[in-house]
């Protein structure tokens, strides 16, 4: 299958000091199945790799001169979305399908660090291979190293509203993928 790419050039927005995240996510959400995104930016947009990676996109980036970058985001299941492609959104190279979440939690209204406490408590009660999905109001920076230490896989990113962060955690996922 040949992937076609829709161009999104956020360089003017960035040069004007704007925040291009909404623009990019709006473009991603209108992509028909099988179509990819060609992004032009004034820097290497590393966090986007994880946000779109959580949606199954893989990426190839290259510097195109003048400090600008071109990134090709290939949709899930496309030819360029090779199985050995890295998925930086996740804790390890794990691009396979994950099962539906066995547990969901909304932790957006909890005082920090209560969201982390509840997530870790839940992961201890769940079975190997099960997935936990949680909504948070920011990227859980202190939780991620703890998940890595405990051998869980995770995929996370901001939702389209730009303020809700959804993390999915697969119990023992890191160990599984590494095998």
């Amino acid at each position, binding site marked *: 299958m040949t992937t076609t790419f829709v161009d999104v050039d956020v360089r003017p927005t960035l040069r004007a000091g704007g925040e*291009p*995240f909404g623009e990019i996510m709006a473009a991603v959400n209108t992509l028909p199945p099988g179509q990819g995104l060609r992004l032009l*930016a004034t820097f290497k947009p590393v966090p*986007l790799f994880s946000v779109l990676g959580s949606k199954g996109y893989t990426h190839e980036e290259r510097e195109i001169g003048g400090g600008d970058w071109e990134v090709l985001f290939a949709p899930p299941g496309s030819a360029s979305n090779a199985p050995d492609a890295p998925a930086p959104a996740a804790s390890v190279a794990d691009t396979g399908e994950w099962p539906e979440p066995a547990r969901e939690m909304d932790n957006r*209204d909890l005082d920090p660090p209560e969201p982390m406490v509840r997530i870790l408590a839940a992961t201890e009660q769940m079975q190997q291979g099960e997935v936990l999905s949680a909504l948070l109001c920011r990227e*859980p920076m202190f939780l*991620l*190293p703890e998940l*890595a*230490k405990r051998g869980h896989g995770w995929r996370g990113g901001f939702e389209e509203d730009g303020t809700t962060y959804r993390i999915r955690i697969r119990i023992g996922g890191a160990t599984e993928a590494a095998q």
Partner: protein
Amino acid sequence: MPGVTLSRWTMSYFALALLCLMGALALMAGGFGYPAAEIAAPQTLLLVHLIALGWLSLLLCGALFQFVPVLIARPLHSDSLPLPTLVCLTSGLLLLLCGFLHLAGWPGPRGVLPLGGALLVLGFALAIHNLARTMWAAPAIGLPARFVAVGLACLGATALLGFVFTLFFGGVSSAPLVAALTVEGLPLHAVAGIGGWLTFTAMGVSYRLLAMFMLAPELEGRSTKAALWLGAAALTTVIVGGVAAIALGYGPDWALVAGSLLGLAALGLYGRDIARLYRARKRRVIELNSRMAGVALAHLAATAALAVVLIATGTLGRHVGALVFLAAFGWLTGLGLAKLYKIVAFLTWLECYGPVLGKVETPRVQDLVAEPKAAPWFWLYFAATDFVVLMLLAEAPGLARIGAAAMLLAVGAVVHQLWRIRRLADVRQAARLPQGVSRPHVLILTVPQA
């Protein structure tokens, strides 16, 4: 490893910083430097730098190494640089203080002042490098981190101006520009340091920390952006405009006046933002640290108001000591102590109980603190600070020194509370050390390995 881990030396920065704060208050109460001595006396210079570098800058550097990564969701560029940075800063500070003693007539080599200045420049350059590279790696940084970036630029300017002064006083250079900057550049050095580095950085961090701890929505709107731009314009006007004016042979006065007006506008917008943040919080009952941060913010407003009154009445020159004291202790130290009370508890909790969360029953962060015991000391601290400011305005240095002693007592008690937090002393004994948890080292954070 993804995410943010603990910054190993943060507690050491905090401990040294608190030591400097207590040392400075003890000197002040004991009659060394201002208010017992003149404001321009070398003893006062020693005191001012013990507070600005030893206490506030070490505190802020330690906090930034831990929280800049949280602000921009990227790991710190280097985890090994904070220790050499700390060594450069503390040795530079010690030499600088010796240099000031030498200026006051104590025996010693003349070269220690520029040597101390150079070490401080090196230490701050390492800190700026580490934090700037961290931010540089992030594709887009939010508004709080942009405040920090401006603050770091001001830190660079402050350190360089200070270094120029040490070259002149240390007898290394008396080139016309060095002499002119030393004679006329002191207000620029003070504004870049207190207004730019310390205040602007604290403003940026407070946007995020207050929102986080009170469950308020993050402010990224127009007034926050305007506060950032107006503040950055104010600081550029004072620092760049002021240095250019001195180099061209004009005084820096116009730059100071223009910068103050822009700065007041930025502070007004910041004040409105923060008031909105407190009102929009989802958490109705807020913790002691957020309440005390509120008192510190009120002191920032009081500082701005006092500055306006002193300028309007033409008495700024006479009362500049009281104004700087209010900014340094009512606002910056007040905010620093309030946030330390939360940060130390949070980092200690994460260090001790993070690895076993969910596996065994663990205490909450709030179980590590004893707010009813700490609260009266915070109130004493602020009351004593206000008393000292009033006594300085009334030109009663003897009474001001008694106030400084009360501040020292209050800070000592808060430090004792922080010590208890590190020792887990207020956690119920049955819950204190569940299986797999050991008591933390007071000065060094144990960084878990993957």
